[in-house]
């Protein structure tokens, strides 16, 4: 099939003067090239990224000595009440952080979009909003250790509460939850802001002006003109933030280590604890498999709303 042209497609009489892609011969050769180039590299990476899943399944159904033990580890993983406790705490964390981040980010974006006209100030806000996002999570933990720590934290100093009865932000149950969630809000509200602000720039100014001529209030302008443009972005942000909450680890590890008790022992910290503090890798593998399956299901839902190839 590639008899005479070998790899000098342009020398082929039919290709001269024509766009290569449109000749059938060249096209089929190019399609072969797609696989020749893609398969070795993509295949390797795909295997390397899939091995952990297969290995986690194997680890979960075998004992330390290598014998097959069936679903025992899954039974122990699902029978552990601390798992449900960690899911519940993760849910509370998300329920505090995500609405504030999304509504706050959206609110600030609308505020800046409507009232700040200067491009220099807009650019300055853009850079400022990027700062929390690009700070390594570990460093964010350190930053807020300095804010919330008892005796040395600056918050209690500012509140004038330095005595023996000062609020223990990191070691009393409801406060530790609020403290860790507040860090999430500090770091990710600017992210929502940036996405929403970028989204607002795509709203055609003619529709906004037409609405204003018709006497639309600020609310109806948002509800009927801007919101439709922002809806896909709101979904995207929500999905990314949910995925991020499931992986929350670094800043909480630095701030509370999961305590007090199990107050801030969120899902990732719980799995870490089972696997590496209790060295129960069997149960941890079962949990890893369950989480990977759950996130894959979640991802198929995400794909339904966000077609992977958005052109």
């Amino acid at each position, binding site marked *: 099939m590639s008899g005479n042209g070998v790899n000098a497609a342009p020398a082929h009489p039919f290709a001269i003067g024509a766009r290569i*892609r449109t000749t059938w011969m060249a096209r089929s050769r190019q399609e072969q*090239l797609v696989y020749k180039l893609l398969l070795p590299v993509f295949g390797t*990476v795909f295997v390397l990224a899939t091995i*952990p899943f297969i290995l986690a399944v194997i680890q979960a159904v075998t004992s330390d000595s290598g014998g097959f033990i069936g679903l025992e580890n899954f039974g122990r993983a699902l029978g552990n009440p601390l798992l449900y406790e960690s899911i519940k705490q993760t849910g509370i964390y998300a329920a505090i952080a995500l609405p504030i981040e999304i509504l706050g980010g959206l609110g600030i974006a609308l505020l800046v979009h409507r009232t700040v006209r200067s491009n220099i100030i807009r650019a300055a806000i853009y850079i400022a909003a990027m700062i929390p996002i690009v700070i*390594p999570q570990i460093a964010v933990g350190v930053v807020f250790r*300095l804010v919330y720590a008892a005796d040395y934290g600056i918050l209690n100093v500012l509140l004038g509460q330095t005595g023996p009865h000062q609020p223990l932000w990191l070691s009393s149950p409801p406060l530790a939850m609020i403290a860790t969630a507040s860090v999430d809000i500090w770091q990710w509200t600017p992210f929502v802001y940036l996405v929403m602000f970028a989204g607002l720039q795509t709203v055609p100014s003619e529709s906004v002006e037409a609405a204003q001529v018709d006497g639309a209030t600020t609310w109806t302008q948002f509800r009927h003109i801007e919101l439709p443009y922002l809806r896909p972005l709101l979904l995207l942000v929500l999905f990314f933030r949910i995925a991020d909450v499931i*992986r929350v680890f670094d800043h909480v590890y630095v701030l509370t280590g999961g305590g007090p008790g199990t107050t801030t022992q969120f899902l*990732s910290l719980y799995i870490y604890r089972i696997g590496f503090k209790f060295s129960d890798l069997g149960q941890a593998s079962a949990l890893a498999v369950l989480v990977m399956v759950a996130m894959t299901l979640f991802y198929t839902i995400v794909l339904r709303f966000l077609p992977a190839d958005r052109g």
Partner: protein
Amino acid sequence: MTHRSRGFTRVATSVLLAVIAFIFAFPLFYLISTSLKTKADLFAPVPSLFPPAPTIDPYISVLFTRGFGGLLVNSVVVGLSATVLSICVAFAICYPITRLPASPRLRAFVLSWALSLRFLPPVAVVIPYFAIVRTIGLYNQLPALILVYTIFNLPLAIWMLRGFLDEIPLEIEEAALVDGASRWYAFRTILLPLSRTGILAVVIIVFAFDWAEFLFAFILTATPQAMTFPVGVQGLVTQFEIIWNDMAAGAVIAIVIPLSLMIIARRHVMTGLTFGVIREK
């Protein structure tokens, strides 16, 4: 709206934005302030807002006395190697799906597979990797981290690079091909130079992500031989008595590198973080 009420709204908005900016900036200010305090300042009954006698001793203590300079080198070596690998792999994957007539289904599969990695919590992945890395003798070795970082920051590289490549018209290369150039020659002399800005942006952002990674490094390394800088910073926090100024200095160093990189590549940061949904024009 009357003139006066518009002026009032303006002032109110400015005040509100200033308050928000203050709340966001204050913790960082206090971090820097603490990192410039002397050891004696740490024992003040009430910690001060500003360092009474600013000093860079905590930075020297972290980098040299505590030997974190070595961790910094590890972080740079791991970050650079993983970034270069990610870019090469991303190119090998993005070239066929953007420059050749790959079927839309194949293209969609590759891209959605890449995005799916973004949804896997590292803690679930690290448990099996921990076993692999110990079995093949790479525990506490930099190559293990390079490998893992390459794979898990690949989605970012693929999505960003694909966005940049899509913007370069196919016709430019095709013209060269029609003139008798080989694909490899066209890639090297046309596509590569045209995508230079894009490659640079991907390099910077992937490196910043590699740099900030904590959990994999925390679990797959054990000694300063292979530990990365964020693992070292974490070690400063959980000791029994926290040396606040050293801890703050460590965090400042950890922040400065990704922050300056991101400011250089600021036009592309959001593209990276949203996997190409947000595009700067």
